[in-house]
């Protein structure tokens, strides 16, 4: 079984998947990867199930020694993903051999990404999920961020994983927004508890990400978003991912992966999925702007992400089945078959894996 020995844990490295769904009514936060579209694409590149767990890496990445063999891809911002000191970068599958050392040379753009392994990170699921919810010490690796000296297991990879080396994501399939794009806000929820001036301030001015931001929420500073006569408190209700919560002080807080399930502050709307992805890649001090968006735009973004994941799965299948001259020359056994399935003919090349 492949394992990773954690030499240096990095700034904040934790096991995350698509999140712990189904238990919010028990007060259990969803958690999961901050950059969900990147996790889904990374898993597709490796032939993993979409919800396989990865290591979420924040700014300064870990140093990991590979025990066994495998394949990995870094899905997300360019944090300088390297193997044995050789830069691999983001969105390219690299084959890992026993003794290889994974490291990160430092952020070149963005804040975080998912270090995905063929087979996924294998920690015991808790409430149907492998994501770490650190505040309540639930799930992931012992409910916490990785520490120096931890040993993390990798699950069984999909067949043909050895042929994934070098598979790169075509840039046009990465649905990420340009870094300077305004954040799309689908207004709703307690929108009617804000004044017109308050809403106008949100959409016409610039906000700065404060240093108080974390996996739970992203606090912004800027022009006050004014409430109407009922103020900024409500009877507690649900807090969806990307909800823009505005307490009485008038400064927006975007609720992220580790958000609480319910909250008592007014929410002016919810960010679209790609805007959430763009926001979680921004550093404290960065400026953001908002634009008003429709629910249909959010749905269209979800469709676009799902389509990109489907396309990457297709491309991966054709990548692993490409003829490989190098293998043939190395003396691998190759046989060719003609199969007829449902009246259609297929030429199939079989190679014995070295």
């Amino acid at each position, binding site marked *: 079984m492949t394992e990773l020995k954690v030499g240096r844990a990095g700034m904040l490295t934790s096991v995350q998947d698509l999140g712990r*769904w*189904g*238990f*919010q*009514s*028990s*007060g*259990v936060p969803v958690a999961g990867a901050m950059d969900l579209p990147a996790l889904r694409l990374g898993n597709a590149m490796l032939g993993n199930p979409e919800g396989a767990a990865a290591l979420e890496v924040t700014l300064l990445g870990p140093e990991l020694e590979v025990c066994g063999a495998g394949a990995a891809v870094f899905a997300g911002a360019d944090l300088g993903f390297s193997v044995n000191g050789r830069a691999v970068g983001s969105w390219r599958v690299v084959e890992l051999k026993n003794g290889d050392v994974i490291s990160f040379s430092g952020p070149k753009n963005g804040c975080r990404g998912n270090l995905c392994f063929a087979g996924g990170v294998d920690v015991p699921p*808790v*409430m149907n999920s492998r994501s770490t919810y650190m505040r*309540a010490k*639930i*799930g992931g690796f012992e409910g916490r961020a990785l520490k120096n000296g931890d040993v993390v297991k990798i699950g069984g990879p999909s067949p043909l994983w050895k042929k994934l080396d070098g598979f790169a994501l075509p840039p046009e399939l990465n649905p990420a927004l340009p870094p300077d794009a305004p954040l799309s806000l*689908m*207004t*709703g*929820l307690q929108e009617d508890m804000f004044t017109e001036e308050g809403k106008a301030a949100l959409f016409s001015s610039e906000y700065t990400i404060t240093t108080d931001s974390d996996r739970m929420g992203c606090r912004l500073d800027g022009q006050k978003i004014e409430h109407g006569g009922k103020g900024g408190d*409500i*009877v*507690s*209700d*649900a807090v*969806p*991912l*990307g*909800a823009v919560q505005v307490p009485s002080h008038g400064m927006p807080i975007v609720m992220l992966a580790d958000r*609480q*399930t*319910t909250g008592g502050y007014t*929410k002016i*709307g*919810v*960010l*679209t*999925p790609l805007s959430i992805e763009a926001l979680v890649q921004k550093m404290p001090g960065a400026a953001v702007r908002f634009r008003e968006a429709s*629910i249909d*735009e*959010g*749905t269209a*973004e*979800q*469709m676009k992400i*799902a389509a990109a994941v489907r396309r990457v799965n297709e491309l991966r299948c054709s990548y692993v089945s490409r003829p490989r001259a190098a293998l043939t020359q190395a003396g691998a056994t190759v046989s060719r078959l003609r199969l007829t399935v449902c009246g259609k003919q297929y030429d199939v090349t079989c190679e014995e894996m070295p």
Partner: protein
Amino acid sequence: MTALAIYIDEPKFLAAGESCVVVEFADEISREANDAVTALAKHMRLQKRVPLMECLPTYRSLAIYFDPTKTAREAVIQEARSAPAFSADCGTYGTEIEIPVCYGGEYGPDIANVAEHAGIAEEEVVLRHSAKPCHCYMIGFLPGFAYLGGMDESIATPRLANPRTVIKGGSVGIAGKQTGIYPIDSPGGWQLIGRTPLRLFTPEAARPTLIEAGYEVRFVSVSEDEYKKIEAEVAAGVYRPVIKEADTL
């Protein structure tokens, strides 16, 4: 079986992004609205027509999470509208759970504060706190934390001026008119009057929380000996909590 009050007002269907619809029955805390939420949650969870991610009931609204690439928003709204939430009986409503509590002493160090504030004896605090069941309006804030309403208001007591940094899981407290149980060790400022040996939150269990939204919670006073006996049974995994479904009430 208690019949639900007929809910007259048309609920609001609020847009909460592309993956969530919030069905809001009221903008204040009311038992009628909460019963409608409970009934709608039950309907949405049992129905098989529309695939959902999950439903999250709160005081006065139900958040319905779905995958918009698999489920159309209109289908979610249509299914919610077809629910008998506003006039029919609901099985969860009326479910009563007994929570054994050892009051006072080291288990409830603030019971004297509560007694003094109410101008009554500590024994009377116990009687009033366990006299009638409290309604669980929602679960939130912490895993398994139940928001309970309906406590005898004569024992309402303000929060501690200096919150404790660690409160043991199972502690039963009062904060103003609210009463509740800390499900896990946590900081907090509630006046602690007792502790239950039951585990409110068990991450590895199929149903991780003992109390669910819509339950009636009845506190039952137990001696320290009984507390320790139940605690041992809980630790051994043989304790069966006393839960009466609506039909048998």
